[in-house]
């Protein structure tokens, strides 16, 4: 029986005898598929580990988003928030946006520290390193799901009757946001492995982005922020799904589709970069 052999050279790793086009892309996809169980295990490990040795345990995963919800509802009731008419009660509007935003911000932050957190494991065990990024990003997806359930509760509280088709489409439209999150996640993971600056920069950028992107407020179409946001991928990827959920339709889809395609391209590119660069980065993490 012939044994499958791997060849390591300065140019990268190859499987002996394998030929054809897109060798690297094929190798990285098959690696990720083979690692799906590992991704799930790593996710469980981090998720459970985070809430161990706390009295409330896993309840924290729900409590923190719940706190945000409570704050928005309370502010709305006391009349602090005067955002103008968004067609639905403001908390429902803001929380829907925040739900999508949390997928992006939680996922990206987790990705940026995924390699560093893995510590000595990286340099001792040979395993698919992309699993670390995928499992980190999964934290964002879980955060999204938890918040989505809570937001649904808020909808019920305000007696908003949802348009089921809009909700279905809105949830489906989270996919490009995931692609963007993973696409950026791979690059911040690998660059953050070498340059620790990334960890600090990410927090600053996310904080700025949350304010600049019309997530917590509707935008006036003629303002400077609106023009800036034409080029803000997050704006398209969050506001189109939100429009679909709240109103059943969005005024424009062009930006959304362009961003979605670019996000997919970004993911393929950075994932490949990660795959090619991992050996070089690991000696420096």
């Amino acid at each position, binding site marked *: 029986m012939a044994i499958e052999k791997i060849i390591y*050279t300065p140019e990268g790793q190859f499987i*002996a005898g394998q030929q054809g086009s897109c060798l690297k892309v094929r190798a990285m996809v098959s690696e990720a598929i083979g690692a799906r169980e590992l991704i799930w295990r790593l996710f469980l490990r981090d998720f459970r580990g985070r809430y161990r040795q706390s009295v409330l345990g896993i309840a924290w995963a729900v409590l923190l988003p719940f706190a945000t919800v409570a704050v928005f509802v309370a502010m709305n009731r006391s009349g602090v928030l005067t955002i103008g008419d968004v067609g639905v009660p403001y908390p429902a509007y803001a929380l829907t946006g925040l739900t999508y935003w949390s997928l992006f911000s939680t996922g990206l932050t987790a990705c940026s520290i995924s390699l560093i957190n893995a510590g000595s494991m990286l340099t001792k065990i040979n395993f698919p390193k992309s699993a670390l990024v995928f499992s980190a990003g999964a934290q964002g997806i879980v955060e999204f799901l938890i918040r989505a359930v809570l937001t649904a509760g808020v909808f019920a509280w305000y007696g908003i009757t949802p348009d089921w088709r809009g909700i279905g489409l809105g949830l489906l439209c989270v996919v490009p946001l995931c692609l963007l999150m993973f696409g950026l996640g791979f690059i911040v993971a690998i660059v953050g492995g070498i340059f620790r600056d990334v960890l600090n920069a990410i927090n600053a950028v996310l904080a700025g982005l949350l304010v600049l992107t019309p997530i917590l407020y509707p935008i006036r179409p003629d303002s400077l922020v609106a023009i800036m946001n034409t080029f803000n991928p997050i704006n398209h990827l969050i506001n189109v799904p939100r429009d679909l959920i709240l109103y059943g339709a969005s005024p424009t889809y062009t930006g959304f589709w362009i961003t979605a395609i670019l996000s997919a391209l970004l993911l393929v590119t950075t994932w490949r970069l990660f795959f090619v660069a991992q050996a070089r980065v690991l000696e420096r993490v």
Partner: protein
Amino acid sequence: MSEEPLIRVDGVSKKFCKSLKHNMLYGAQDLARNFLGLPRGRAELRESEFWSLDDISFELKRGECLGLIGPNGAGKSTLLKILNGIIAPDRGRVETPRRVGALIEVGSGFHPMLTGRENIFVNSAILGFSKQETTRKFDEIVDFADIGDFIDSPVKHYSSGMHVRLGFAIAAQMQPDVLLIDEILAVGDAGFRSKCYNCIGRLAERSAVVFVSHAMPAVSRLSTRTMVLDHGKTSFHGHPAEAIAHYHRLFDNQMRPTRQGLGSACIHSLQVLDAAGCPVRSIVQGQGLTVRFGVRTDVAITNTCLDLVFVSIADEVVAECNNLVAGKTINLQAGSDIHVYVHIDSFSLNAGIYRISALVLSADMIMHYDWQKDIASIEVRADRVGVAGQQYRARWTLTDSPQETSK
């Protein structure tokens, strides 16, 4: 049967960078090149880089075991990492089967907050086992680790021994074509070590093994061939006993004699002589040996203690010749200069190099008149390196009757 080599290492070199700043810069440059598919820059060293591994080549077949020895920083662990595919070589080529098992710092990847039970599943997944496989082997793992009720405690409450036990038990479930081992047997208690040896023996039967160790008995026992690395280069590659002797000589060259003590007496010369009375630097294990040294003293020392101490490369005091222990009274007169001959009938220390220190002490062994540290060295040669410091060659007889029949 001439089988195809499992591992083929061909002119592998690896450079590292001493300065963090340059390291980051070069990292970014190399990344850009790799990604764009450009050829690597010139292979020469850039500023503050050095070759951690330089032109290493070897081949290993199934059933063979290569021992890697060398001083700290010689590049042994780097070579293991390249074989394991964790870091890429800067020159050369490595061909290895896909199924590589590494017993290197077992238990890394454990989450301290999770229980041993949960960590078994996580760690198994990292090593590439499916959940079904892990579930099937779970009892075996727990049994091997033998950590009792602690299996349901968070791993952070484990002693370092238990940590390693559990890690090893999981890693031992692999069925690799190539097994990489890095100094694993330095940990755990005696009982666990013997279990590990058995397990490695079982795995090694059907794989090619590369292992790094500073424990020469283990190297002598496990390896079929041994490679000595020094400053990233292959300094010797061949028979384990010769390799170990070569390794010991690397340290011998670094030996620096030092002198302590009152200075009122002086051991001014010391030679090691063979049975024929010729000065030698090495002898065959079990041969007779004489140490000759000259003592000059300015003061009178009654019932003095002359002490010869043999120290191994591992800095353990392994043997001693002491006239007080031997029951020989020596009185030194002021102003005298004498020669002392110490005859040892059968010098049977374990194969290796030993540094000799010589002391002139008072009868109660408190006053140090002279203490010559590492004044000389002697190499003991043998085909096999044993475990214990003292190796009795002994007479061996075999008989099937309960009485030993003398002929």
